[in-house]
C-alpha cells in the first residue's frame, strides 16, 4: 500500500470516528435531555393544529402530525425507544450468545452439537417470518420486541465466540492454566473471555444499529411497540398516508433513523479497524 493512500485512509478513519461519535453522542444526549425538554412525552394532541408545516410556527419547528402533536418532541422522545431496544436487545443477545459459545466451544462434544444444531435451525428461519409468527402469537409491545430480537440474534454471538474459543483452547496459556489446576469457570471467564472482547464489541456496535432498524421495521408493520408510545417506526407508519400532502410527518423520523444508524455504523467500522490487528488501517 502506498504512503499516499495509507495517509488518506488514516485521515478517513479519523473522520469516521469524529462524525460517528458526534452523531451518536449528540443523539444520546438529546434523548436523555428529552425527559426535561418534553415532560409530556410528545403525546399532547391538538386537533386544531393538525399537519402544520415545518419551519413556520416557532413552537413547532418541525411541524405537527395528523393529530397536531409536535414532530420534534416526538422525534426526541421516540429516540428513547430506539436506543432502549437497540441496547437492551444487544445486551441480552451478547450475554446468552457468549455463554452458549463459550460452553460449546470449550466443552465440544454433546453440548457443542446441541447448541450449534439449534443455531443452524434458527439461522434457517427468515427473520420476518419468525418475527410475524412470534409477535402475532404473544402480541407486540416493547418487552416482547426486545425478547424477539434477543432470541433471533444470540446465534451470531454464539458462533463468533465458539469459533474463537476453538482456536484459543489449544493455545499454551490455556493449556498451562489447565495444567496448574485453574477451574473451568476461571478459564472461561478470566482467560478466554478477555481475549474475545474486541470482535464482540465491534459486532455489538453494528448490531445496535441493525436492531434499531429492525425495531422500526416491526413497529412500522404494526408488530412492534405500542402505537401510543412515540417511536420512529411508528411515526413513519403514521405519516405514510400523509406522504403526498405532509411530507414532514415521515421525512423527519426517517432522517433521525438514518443519522443514528449512520453514526453507529461509522463508529463500528472505526472500532473494527482499531481493535483488529490484522486489518491494515490501524497501523
Amino acid at each position, binding site marked *: 500500500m502506498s504512503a499516499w493512500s495509507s495517509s488518506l485512509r488514516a485521515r478517513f478513519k479519523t473522520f469516521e470516528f469524529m462524525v460517528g461519535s458526534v452523531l451518536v453522542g449528540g443523539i444520546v444526549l438529546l434523548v436523555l435531555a428529552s425527559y426535561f425538554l418534553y415532560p409530556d412525552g410528545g403525546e399532547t394532541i391538538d386537533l386544531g393544529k*393538525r399537519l402544520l408545516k415545518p419551519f413556520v410556527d416557532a413552537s413547532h419547528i418541525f411541524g405537527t402530525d395528523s393529530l397536531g402533536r409536535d414532530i420534534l418532541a416526538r422525534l426526541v422522545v421516540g429516540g428513547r425507544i430506539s436506543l432502549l431496544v437497540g441496547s437492551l436487545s444487544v445486551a441480552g443477545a451478547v450475554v446468552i450468545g457468549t455463554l452458549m459459545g463459550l460452553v460449546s466451544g470449550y466443552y465440544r462434544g454433546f453440548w457443542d452439537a446441541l447448541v450449534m444444531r439449534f443455531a443452524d435451525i434458527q439461522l434457517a428461519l427468515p427473520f420476518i417470518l419468525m418475527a410475524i409468527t412470534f409477535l402475532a402469537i404473544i*402480541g407486540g409491545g416493547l418487552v416482547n420486541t426486545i425478547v424477539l430480537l434477543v432470541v433471533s440474534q444470540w446465534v451470531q454471538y454464539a458462533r463468533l465466540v465458539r469459533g474463537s474459543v476453538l482456536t484459543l483452547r489449544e493455545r499454551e496459556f490455556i493449556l498451562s492454566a489447565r495444567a496448574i489446576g485453574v477451574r473451568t469457570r476461571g478459564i472461561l471467564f478470566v482467560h478466554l473471555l478477555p481475549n474475545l472482547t474486541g470482535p464482540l464489541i465491534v459486532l455489538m456496535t453494528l448490531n445496535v444499529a441493525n436492531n434499531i432498524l429492525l425495531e422500526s421495521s416491526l413497529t412500522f408493520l404494526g408488530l412492534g411497540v405500542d402505537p401510543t408510545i412515540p417511536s420512529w417506526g411508528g411515526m413513519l407508519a*403514521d405519516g405514510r*398516508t400523509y406522504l403526498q400532502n405532509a411530507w414532514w410527518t415521515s421525512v423527519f423520523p426517517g432522517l433521525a433513523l438514518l443519522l443514528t444508524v449512520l453514526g453507529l455504523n461509522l463508529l463500528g467500522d472505526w472500532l473494527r479497524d482499531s481493535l483488529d490487528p490484522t486489518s491494515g488501517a490501524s497501523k
Partner: protein
Amino acid sequence: MLALKKPLVPIMALALLGIFAAGPAAAQGTLVVSSPQDPGSWDPIDTFLVNWASVATNIYDGLTYRGPDGKLGPGLATKWDVLDNGTRVRFYLRKGVVFQDGEPFNAAAVKFTFDRLLGPEGAKGPQFSNYNAIESVKVIDDFTVDFKLKKPDPVLLVKLGGYGAMIVPPRYIQEKGEDWFNTHPVGTGPFKFVSYEPKIGIKLEAFDKFWGGRPKLDKLEYRFITEPATAVAELQAGRVDLVIPPTIPIGMISTINSSPNLKVVSVPGLTVLALRFNTAHGITQDLRVRKAIIMAVDRDAIIKTILGGQAIPIASFQGPLSFGFDPSMKPVPYDPKQAKALLAEAGVKPGAQIQIDIRNNDETFLEVNQAIASYLKQVGINATIKPYETNYMLNDIIPNGKTGEMFQQAWGGWTLDFDNTAYLMYHSGEKWNPYEKDPKLDALLESQRSITDVAKREQILQEIARYSADHAYEMLLYNLNSIYAINTRVKNFVAPPDSRLRLTDVSVE
C-alpha cells in the same frame, strides 16, 4: 448498510409511483376497479365478505334486489305474496331469463339453489345460518315457487337479495362440479365471467342476453390491491378507474380531490365502529367507569378533524339506514368534568391503566385511538393500544374473552336491520359477546325475532338500543361513510352504501 433501506422501501416505492403518475388511459368501454380483498371463491355459499359482493352483484341475481338507495325491489322474482301468517312466501318468477352459460332460469333453478344452500354443501359454508328459517322450497309450476318457513323471518326478503341466496345454474354445477364453480362463476347478471387470477384480479365482460338489457360497459376488470397507497397511485396513474371501500384513508381525500380528473364520492355507509367494554374484568366492570370513559372522549371533535367529517356520531350500534334506528336517541355528550367526578365516585385513582385492543390494518382507526388515549389521559386514565392481526383478534381474542378493557368492533349490518347487529352483539353466548349475560336483554332480543308486525318490532329494537346504551356496553364512535375514489371519465356511477356495486348503467368516456 443494506438493512437501512427496509423501513424506507415502501415510502420510496410510493414516491416513485407518485412521480411517474402520468396516465396511460384505459381502453374504451373498459372499467377497472380496485378492490382491497380477494374473497378466494366466487360461490355464493362460500362467502361473507362484502368485497365478494362488489364483484358478484354483477354476475348473479337474487329473487329480490336492493339497489344503492337501500329500497327493496323485484329481482328474478317480479312479485311475491306473504301467506299463512308469514310462514309461506310465494314468488312469481321473471320469464325469458337465461344464465350466462345458456341454460334457462326457472323454478327448478330456484329450488336447486336453495336445496344446495340448505343441504350438506351449504352447511359447510358461512351462509347457511342466515337462511335456515327456510324449511323447504316447492315448485308450483315453471315460474312459481313457494318458500315454506319454519317460523316467520322478518328480514328474509332482504336476505334473498344478497350473498347466499344468489340463484345459481343447476346444469352447469352438476356437470362441472363444485370446485370448478368456485373459480368459474355463472349467474344471470349483467356481466359474465372471463378469467380469474387469485390475489391478482377477475375479469368480466358484458352479457349480451342479460334480461335487463346489455350493460353499457364492454369489459369490467377488478384488481385486488390491498395497500391503500398503491391503489391511490394506480388511480392517479390512470390504470384504475374506481377505488372501492374500504380502501381510501381519510388523509388522502384532499390529495385525490386536488387532481382535476379524479374525485372522491362519499355516501352514508353501513359500517359502525365502537370500542366495546370488557364488562367482566378490570375497572370497566363498573358501569360508572364505563360511562366516565365515554364522556371523557370528544367524539365530535374526532369526527370533524381526524375523519374530516366523513362520519356521523351514533347513539346506538347502528346507522340511520338501519331498521330499529331511533332518531330521538342522542350520543352521550363530551363532559370531562363529569367523567372525573364519576371516576372518583367509583374509586378509580388517577393513573389507572386500561388496554385498548384494535386490528392492525386500519390506519385511520389507529389515529382515532391515539386521540382517544390522549383524551383519557386528561381524566387520569392511561390507555395503551394493542394492535392484533385481524383474524387472530376476530377468531380468538374476542370470542374467547381475552381482550383488554376495551376492544374494537366494526360492524357492517348489510341487512339494514338492527336485529342482525344486536342479536350477535348482546345475546348471551354469541361469538361477539364474550362477557355479558343478561336474561332481560336476551328475552328482548328473542322476542322480536318472530314478530311480523313491523311497528311492534321496530319498537322492541329501539328498546334494545336504549337498553344497551343505558348499560354502556360500548363507547359508540361513529357511522363511517363509504368512500369511493373515481376517475371523472366514469359516468352514471351511483355509489351504494356498502360497496355492493351493480355497474349495469355505468359507462366510460
